[in-house]
């Protein structure tokens, strides 16, 4: 009894206005400005390079980053509906907002679909024998393109992608609509809503793992038609967890400068999110290294060239930096409890992680092309990898801000809300 009375005296109250704070408009304006500036830079670089090739390759990088935020956000939303936890209540609305940016990601994807021939060797080559004779492709590529034709052809690329987008849009629409209905319902129905969200999200995660595996195989892995890896989808899945959590922490801490997140973001939940991110940093390197170790051990002529393309010819420098940027630095920093509990420092680590993710994608994408494989060299075009994704992500952030402003920032019909308003030591 005494405990409850005490908790009541120290509990904080939920702010009256749960809308997004006014500075989100500032974020939007800044993001738009950054987007425009980098678009201009990207255009200038394309002129200096005299080719659109690198713009398109960098476009895929930008697509994968924003796709990770939008659809990865949807998945993390489903994961937290299934797992529960106070960290999830905190992130629910920001994650919903991420999932509602899917139309922009679809628009980004359309460019890839229309420019398929410049990006994918299998789309470019219709007559394998002629291409082989003219030296455009080698024998291994000719064999792979011919053998994989039922899967790797422009029609399949478009239809599979459209089907995936339709499924993601369905889940995004369903969870977003029900999220609002849940809030307008009475508290007596909360258990029903918890079950309902769980029942949608559980199968949703399974469906998502399959559809996103198909999507990344088509969009990224098939840039090299000869190579395959069974862990590829999972690698991107974990990568999305990595980048979505980093982005969510940046957003939650950014929002905590004003109500309602000022009251809601406690140090305990921030620390929990930091630990969760740490787990993804670990899982990410675990899968990436497992893939490397298995292919290195097998040492098969079908598989090993993919790594050699990415190690020889100065690419070794990039993979070494990638290892440090992507794993060593976030791992070492996130080990520290103090950094996880310090708002400013945790935000810096998360910003670094987003950069590292883009750097990793650069290492995955660029060596797929003949001019760059085993030959890392400077061209104006290679700078597109900084300019194009920066512009695409900036426009995505602006769009995300409008989505964030569309709804209250907290879901109120949830038993965790009372707990998150308690003083931290009541259950620490």
């Amino acid at each position, binding site marked *: 009894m*005494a*405990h409850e009375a*005490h*908790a009541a005296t*120290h509990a904080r109250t939920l702010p009256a206005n749960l809308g997004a704070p006014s500075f989100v408009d500032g974020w939007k304006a800044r993001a738009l400005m950054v987007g425009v500036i980098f678009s201009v830079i990207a255009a200038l670089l394309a002129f200096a390079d005299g080719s659109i090739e690198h713009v398109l390759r960098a476009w895929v990088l930008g697509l994968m980053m924003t796709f990770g935020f939008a659809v990865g956000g949807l998945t993390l939303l489903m994961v937290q509906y299934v797992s529960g936890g106070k960290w999830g209540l905190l992130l629910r609305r920001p994650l919903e907002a991420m999932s509602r940016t899917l139309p922009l990601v679809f628009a980004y994807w359309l460019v890839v679909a229309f420019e398929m021939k410049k990006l994918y060797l299998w789309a470019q080559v219709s007559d394998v024998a002629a291409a082989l004779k003219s030296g455009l492709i080698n024998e291994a590529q000719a064999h792979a393109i011919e053998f994989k034709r039922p899967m790797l052809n422009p029609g399949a690329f478009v239809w599979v992608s459209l089907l995936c987008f339709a499924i993601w849009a369905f889940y995004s629409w369903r969870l977003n609509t029900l999220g609002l209905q849940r809030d307008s319902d009475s508290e007596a129905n909360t258990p029903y809503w918890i079950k309902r969200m769980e029942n949608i999200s559980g199968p949703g995660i399974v469906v998502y793992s399959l559809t996103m595996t198909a999507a990344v195989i088509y969009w990224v892995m098939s840039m090299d038609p000869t190579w395959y890896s069974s862990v590829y989808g999972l690698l991107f899945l974990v990568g999305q967890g990595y980048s979505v959590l980093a982005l969510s922490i940046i957003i939650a801490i950014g929002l905590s400068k004003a109500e309602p997140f000022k009251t809601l973001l406690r140090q305990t939940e921030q620390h929990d999110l930091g630990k969760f991110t740490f787990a993804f940093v670990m899982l990410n390197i675990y899968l990436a*290294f497992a893939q*490397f*170790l298995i292919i*290195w*051990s097998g*040492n098969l002529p079908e598989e090993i060239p993919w790594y050699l393309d990415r190690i020889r010819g100065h690419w070794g420098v990039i993979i070494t930096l990638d290892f440090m940027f992507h794993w060593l630095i976030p791992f070492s920093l996130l080990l520290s409890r103090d950094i996880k509990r310090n708002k400013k420092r945790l935000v810096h680590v998360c910003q670094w992680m987003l950069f590292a993710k883009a750097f990793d994608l650069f290492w995955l994408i660029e060596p797929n092309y003949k001019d760059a494989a085993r030959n890392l060299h400077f061209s104006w075009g290679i700078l597109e990898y900084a300019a194009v994704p920066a512009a695409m992500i900036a426009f995505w952030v602006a769009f995300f801000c409008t989505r964030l402003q569309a709804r209250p920032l907290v879901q109120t019909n949830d038993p965790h809300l009372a707990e998150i308003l308690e*003083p*931290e*030591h*009541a259950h*620490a």
Partner: protein
Amino acid sequence: MPAREGTYGLLAEFDTPGDLIRAAQQARQDGWRRMDCYTPYPVEEAAEAIGFHRNKVPLVTLVGGLMGLAAMFSLETWISTLAYPLNIAGRPTYSWPAFIVPAYEWTILWAGLSAAFGMMALNGLPSLYHPLFNAPNFRDGATTDKFFLCLEALDPKFDAVETKAYLQAFQPQSVVEVEY
């Protein structure tokens, strides 16, 4: 070590963590240093309230982990290059990718063992006797639902009568004197 005699300290019993923390914060502010909190589950604010300082367990863990890493990686390198330089599928004898997994496992093993044994070494566990076991309410409540603050006699501010009155002012359930 000669057997200690006399008063170990005064033990105040609280029903809630909040009351304990308020009392502990006030006592620290009033200049108390030789004191400790006892709770049935970890209450981080209690540690902060009595000015808990950093310990060396993280350092011991880090050093242990790095030692494990270095030990296993060197062992594998020595075996593969010097002791038994076998030709395995034409690979170089120094094939570091294959060494990573055992080296990683040893890092974790050594870090974990260092954390566990380092913690024990630094906090004096296992300890078979503690003066607070003499207080019946401590024996009954410390592991279930009571929160204790002990002001120890070693603190220069300690005075059997005044300190008791001081603790009473926090309105605890009880204040008892504990013998060594």
